[in-house]
């Protein structure tokens, strides 16, 4: 087959930004249609394709939609306010209709038929029996036409594609990983950027913005692998490197000094904070005479409602790619608003907007102004500096901290019922501290001024839909307190929370059914119809609230709310209207609210894609329920607190209610936006349902269990559980035990004679059997563990050991002659091992376990010595000890040794097996297990009467290995053997930290010896009833939510058997059962990086995510929930 001749039918328009081709059909019959809006994850691409395919009578698969490229798509403003279908789709529909008309014209000529008789279907023109596909019809033709705004469009009654459920066109590629999100774009020669943000996270006004950088110490990262450049401009600091990991590592290592920003105003109580800000009142509706009307009312109410700050919380942190291209840059972005971004970026780098192109790729779902635009400024600055494409991926923490928050809002309502029983006066004041989120790079570089500005966006749905003779509606415009902008439902959601709660309160005052009360005041028949039909379909149980239905501790209620989402500058444009009927179950003991069922009726005029509309309703319900019930951004003195989902939990499958929808069919009416409408009534409907269930009126979102618990308790005048007491800092008690390490520098004076330097024997003098045996002893004693510094050479010492007297460092065990054991004779080595005296005669720190090592038999001792002499010599000076006070331990040491040190070898116990005796030797001598697991007395000596009873070692907990406590855990010979071999005794314990290193080191020890150690250890265990393994019910609150969001996925996973889940249940955690919280705190803060040689798992560190106080609260929570049989930590 020959190639078809090229051909093109194109519909264009001349717009301020240049000539834009809305729609093109080529010789293959494929259609490319362009729209200036973008797909925020809502499936708008599919809906637009449906509109084009409908008007053009061709299959959906032949339509390609290009969204949001500044070079080729029209500037139709930001994709906000759900107006893509309502407004931006219009020219596309016209263009498609016009193209269809043109095709019919071409066909009429070809068939020599009257144009009116030409029909179109399935991507082809038809006349009588003849038909021809669009492609061949266009081949060889070039037809360019200006968009005709008067062209007739199809009668909706004839729709075959619009109004039908259609699968998402982008879904198949997303399901196979073939789809390119912005995060997936890779360009040739692309480098990676990582930004370092100033300490004023999430703030955008004040004279410190753009002026807080003191200096960047480039030398601090010199020579780090992959470094390409460090870019600094104002407060913008970014690193460019070859790989993302290198860029991040360099950014984290880079020394940057900042001036500390001034504190935020106190963010609690939030209502006060908002009201204290300067604001400008804007009177929007002053129907009648409000003061007079209010005075005429026979019953009035004055109420205040508060909405908190929220995170948008896209699941994928923002990403952007920029390619400077010699001053004609292209930026790939997940932006909501390509054309506005184009202007911002042009300003950032001093270009005219048309010199810069923004190409839009899909990102993770976007529900408003998140960091998608900011990251493009970052990428562009970095690309300009290095003249290569640069990709910047924000971290989860950067996104959480810096995204402009969904703005908080304060609403004050005053109103009343007149003598007729009707709503008579309604005063409404709303404060919405937000702006449009100026691009962060513009602020950080000082390109724009950080003066506080407000955007007039607090007025969405600010006028209630009800008939009221006297109204005074005022919007108080104010600048953001922290970076804040629009988020799904914008100000209409909080405004409606207030309106629709207040109406419920008035209905209650009037003694009426809340739906009937509303209907009495609704004049618009279409709105009244929606309210009535929703109530009917949903099974609204009419009556006056609160009905207080109770069953045991559970209270049940139903709530109604309704709103029309009005967007755009006041008075704005109406999008779809939505009504909610929801059912809640309230646990009156815990205060938890379960949203069990939500029924949404929605009137959106013509429905383009019913599946898409339903998906939008579901998304709005689920997301907004989560915002209403639990979400809230909190702040420390400077910045927002949450850096991950840990401190800002969002909805999960566990909370998703049953959702029913009713789409009111109005095919003859224009399509209305549906992206946000169903969110708007959410908070009020839930508040009204809670009132119906409990009689408690919540006016401050979120409706957390602790808030409701407090209100319920106040209702019954019962006392609340006292708040947990703050964790006190742990004090040193006596001398803390150390693990076993030769630590130098404890003493100022030599106490013993020095043993002269002598060249150590050369390794060739030792037999391979001796060396193999030495390696086993070395492994059993885990010498390398204590004698290797973090990222230092193995066994070269330098690991800091915290002691009550200061910090000492382990010594270099390698045979380096100057700094290691290279000039130690065997005699010197043996004296150190058995008596704790260094070659030069100084005492080693007393906790060095020479009391254990003394029992190593001569053969093993010599083999160990030999083995050490074969290590690769490393020159490494032992750092000087940093002692707090000069300590002279001479007399103490002498007495101590006399009291506690018995260097005599172990005598075999003939009554026991050979394995037992061998095991005892390994455990007590080289293994020095007791050094950690046996508690010490006040003088730091092991307390023999409590051998292996468990002890704190610094901040670690070495759990009991003997007695009934070990028995209760289930320790027996096979469990010990498995643990010592693999670090994991199924169901009992998993090694971490120091112990995991020890187990890795025991890899050098043969199986028979491991079995022997297990045999001996098991003989010390006493039978006992197993641990209770019970979980307690802990009242829900911020910490239980933190646990569910940050810990549960690995520690109580919904699907067990995950490769990254914890191997031992928390009810068995020895750290949680330890006498002090330090071990739990340490592991939460530092995480776990288990040796790769063992089948163990890692745990991420939360030290950067959670502050000390939150970690301590989490530790206490774990103790209360997973070790309820033990006392709380003091």
């Amino acid at each position, binding site marked *: 087959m020959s190639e078809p001749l090229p051909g093109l039918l194109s519909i264009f328009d001349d717009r301020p930004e240049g000539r834009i081709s809305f729609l093109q059909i080529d010789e293959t019959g494929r259609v490319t249609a362009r729209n200036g809006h973008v797909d925020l994850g809502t499936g708008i691409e599919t809906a637009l394709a449906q509109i084009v395919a409908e008007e053009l009578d061709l299959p959906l698969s032949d339509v390609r939609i290009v969204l949001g490229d500044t070079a080729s798509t029209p500037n139709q403003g930001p994709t906000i306010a759900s107006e893509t279908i309502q407004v931006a789709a219009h020219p596309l529909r016209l263009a498609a209709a016009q193209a269809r008309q043109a095709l019919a014209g071409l066909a009429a000529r070809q068939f020599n038929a009257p144009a009116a008789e030409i029909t179109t279907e399935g991507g082809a023109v038809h006349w009588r029996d003849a038909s021809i596909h669009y492609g061949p019809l266009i081949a060889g033709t070039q037809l360019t036409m200006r968009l005709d705004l008067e062209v007739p469009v199809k009668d909706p009654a004839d729709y075959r594609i619009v109004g039908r459920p259609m699968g*998402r066109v982008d879904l198949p590629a997303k399901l196979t990983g073939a789809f390119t999100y912005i995060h997936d774009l890779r360009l040739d020669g692309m480098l990676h950027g990582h930004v370092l943000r100033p300490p004023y996270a999430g703030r955008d006004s004040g004279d410190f913005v753009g002026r807080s950088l003191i200096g960047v110490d480039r030398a601090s990262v010199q020579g780090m692998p992959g470094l390409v450049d460090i870019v600094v401009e104002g407060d913008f600091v970014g690193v460019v490197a070859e790989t993302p990991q290198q860029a991040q590592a360099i950014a984290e290592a880079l020394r940057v000094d900042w001036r500390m920003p001034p504190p935020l105003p106190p963010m609690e109580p939030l209502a006060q904070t908002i009201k204290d800000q300067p604001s400008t009142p804007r009177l929007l509706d002053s129907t009648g005479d409000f003061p007079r009307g209010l005075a005429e009312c026979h019953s009035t109410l004055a109420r205040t409602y508060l909405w908190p700050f929220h995170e948008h919380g896209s699941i994928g942190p923002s990403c952007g790619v920029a390619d400077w291209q010699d001053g004609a840059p292209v930026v790939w972005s997940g932006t909501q608003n390509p054309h506005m971004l184009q202007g911002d970026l042009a300003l950032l780098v001093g270009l005219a907007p048309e010199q810069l192109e923004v190409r839009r790729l899909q990102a993770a779902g976007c529900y408003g102004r998140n960091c998608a635009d900011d990251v493009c400024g970052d990428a562009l600055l970095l690309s300009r500096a290095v003249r290569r494409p640069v990709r910047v991926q924000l971290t*989860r923490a950067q996104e959480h901290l810096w995204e402009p928050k969904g703005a908080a809002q304060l609403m004050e309502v005053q109103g009343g019922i007149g003598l007729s029983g009707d709503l008579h006066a309604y005063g409404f004041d709303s404060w919405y501290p937000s702006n449009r989120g100026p691009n962060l790079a513009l602020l950080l570089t000082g390109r724009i001024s950080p003066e506080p500005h407000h955007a007039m966006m607090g007025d969405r749905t600010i006028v209630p839909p009800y008939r009221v003779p006297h109204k005074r509606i005022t919007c108080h415009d104010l600048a953001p307190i922290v970076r804040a902008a629009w988020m799904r439902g914008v100000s209409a959601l909080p405004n409606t929370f207030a309106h629709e709660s207040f109406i419920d309160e008035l209905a209650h005052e009037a003694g009426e059914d809340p739906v009937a009360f509303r209907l009495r005041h609704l004049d618009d028949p279409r709105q009244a119809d929606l309210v009535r039909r929703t109530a009917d379909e949903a099974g609204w149980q009419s009556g006056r609230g609160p009905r207080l239905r109770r069953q045991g501790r559970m209270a049940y209620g139903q709530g109604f709310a309704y709103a029309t989402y009005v967007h755009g500058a006041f008075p704005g444009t109406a999008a779809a209207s939505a009504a909610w009927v929801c059912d809640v179950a309230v646990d009156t003991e815990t205060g938890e609210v379960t949203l069990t069922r939500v029924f949404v009726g929605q009137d959106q005029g013509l429905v383009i894609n019913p599946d898409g509309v339903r*998906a939008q309703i579901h998304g709005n319900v689920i997301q907004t329920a989560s915002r209403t019930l639990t979400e809230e951004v909190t702040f420390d003195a400077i910045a927002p607190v949450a850096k991950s989902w*840990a401190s800002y939990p969002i909805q999960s*499958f566990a909370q998703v209610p049953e959702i029913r929808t009713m789409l009111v069919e109005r095919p003859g009416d224009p399509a209305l936006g549906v992206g946000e409408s169903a969110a708007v009534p959410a908070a009020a409907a839930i508040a009204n349902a809670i009132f119906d269930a409990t009689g408690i009126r919540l006016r401050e979102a979120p409706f957390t269990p602790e808030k409701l618990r407090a209100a319920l308790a106040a209702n019954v005048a019962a006392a609340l559980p006292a708040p947990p007491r703050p964790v006190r800092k742990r004090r040193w008690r006596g001398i803390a035990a150390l693990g076993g390490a030769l630590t130098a520098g404890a003493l100022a004076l030599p106490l013993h004679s020095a043993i002269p330097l002598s060249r150590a024997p050369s390794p060739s003098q030792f037999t391979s059997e001796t060396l193999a045996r030495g390696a086993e002893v070395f492994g059993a004693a885990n010498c390398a563990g204590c004698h290797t510094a973090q990222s230092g050479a193995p066994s070269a010492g330098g690991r800091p050991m915290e002691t009550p007297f200061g910090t000492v460092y382990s010594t270099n065990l390698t045979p380096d002659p100057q700094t290691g054991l290279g000039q130690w004779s065997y005699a010197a080595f043996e004296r150190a091992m058995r008596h704790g005296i260094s070659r030069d005669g100084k005492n080693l720190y007393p906790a060095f376990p020479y009391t254990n090592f003394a029992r190593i038999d001569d053969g093993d001792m010599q083999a160990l010595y030999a083995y050490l002499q074969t290590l690769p010599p490393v020159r490494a000076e032992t750092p000087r000890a940093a002692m707090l006070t000069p300590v002279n331990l001479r007399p103490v040491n002498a007495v101590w040794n006399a009291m506690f040190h018995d260097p005599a070898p172990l005598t075999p116990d003939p009554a026991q097996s050979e394995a037992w005796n061998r095991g005892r030797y390994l455990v007590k001598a080289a293994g020095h297990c007791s050094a950690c697991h046996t508690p010490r007395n006040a003088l730091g000596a092991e307390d023999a009467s409590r051998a292996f009873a468990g002890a704190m070692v610094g901040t670690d907990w070495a759990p009991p290995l003997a007695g009934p406590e070990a028995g209760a855990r289930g320790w027996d010979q096979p469990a010990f053997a498995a643990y010592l071999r693999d670090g994991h005794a199924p169901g009992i314990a998993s090694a971490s930290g120091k112990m995991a290193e020890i187990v890795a080191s025991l890899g050098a020890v043969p199986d028979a010896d491991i079995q022997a150690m297990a045999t001996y250890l098991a003989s010390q265990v006493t039978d006992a009833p197993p641990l209770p393994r019970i979980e307690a019910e802990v009242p829900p609150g911020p910490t239980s939510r933190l646990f569910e969001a940050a810990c549960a996925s690995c520690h109580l*996973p919904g*699907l067990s*058997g995950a490769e*990254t889940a914890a191997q031992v249940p928390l009810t068995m955690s020895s750290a949680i059962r330890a006498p002090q919280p330090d071990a739990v705190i340490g592991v939460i803060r530092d995480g776990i990086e288990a040796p790769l040689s063992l089948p163990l798992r890692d745990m*991420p560190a939360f030290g950067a995510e959670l502050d000390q106080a939150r970690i301590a609260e989490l530790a206490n929570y774990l103790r209360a929930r997973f070790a309820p049989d033990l006392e709380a930590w003091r």
Partner: protein
Amino acid sequence: MERLDFTLNGKAVAVTGAARLTLLDVLRDRLELNGAKYGCGLGQCGACTVLVDGAPARSCVMRAARVQGRAVTTLEGLAAPDSGTLHPVQQGFIDGQGAQCGYCLNGMVMTAVALLARNPDPTEAEIRQALRDNLCRCGTHLEIVASVRHAARRMAEAADV
């Protein structure tokens, strides 16, 4: 330079210099696979889920070195390698339209594959439970649950013939 060898979607791969990288970094940045997504890097969201020897794993909290000698399956490896025929779970997600933005989709699909391998006919409650630790901000939960049910049905049908 130390070398990491493992099986990825049925094929042997080798990567050097990956000792300090997470499995997610290796998959995305070294092997240029886009299925697994970066969402939090802390094991909280599930966007990065892959299968290691058939078990779900959060690749952002797993060091790549841990898959030495093991078999890793990503979203890209679910469809039949020759025909490209979608895995029944992928099909189920088309049937149920289980995505809005789809950023969470990888985690939902991979977790569903692991669930159905163990429990071919889960109840709605079991599906919700299994997916509990996978976050979706768009609120696609109901469509996702429906998709998993479609997937279970497709797998049962395929097993019948």
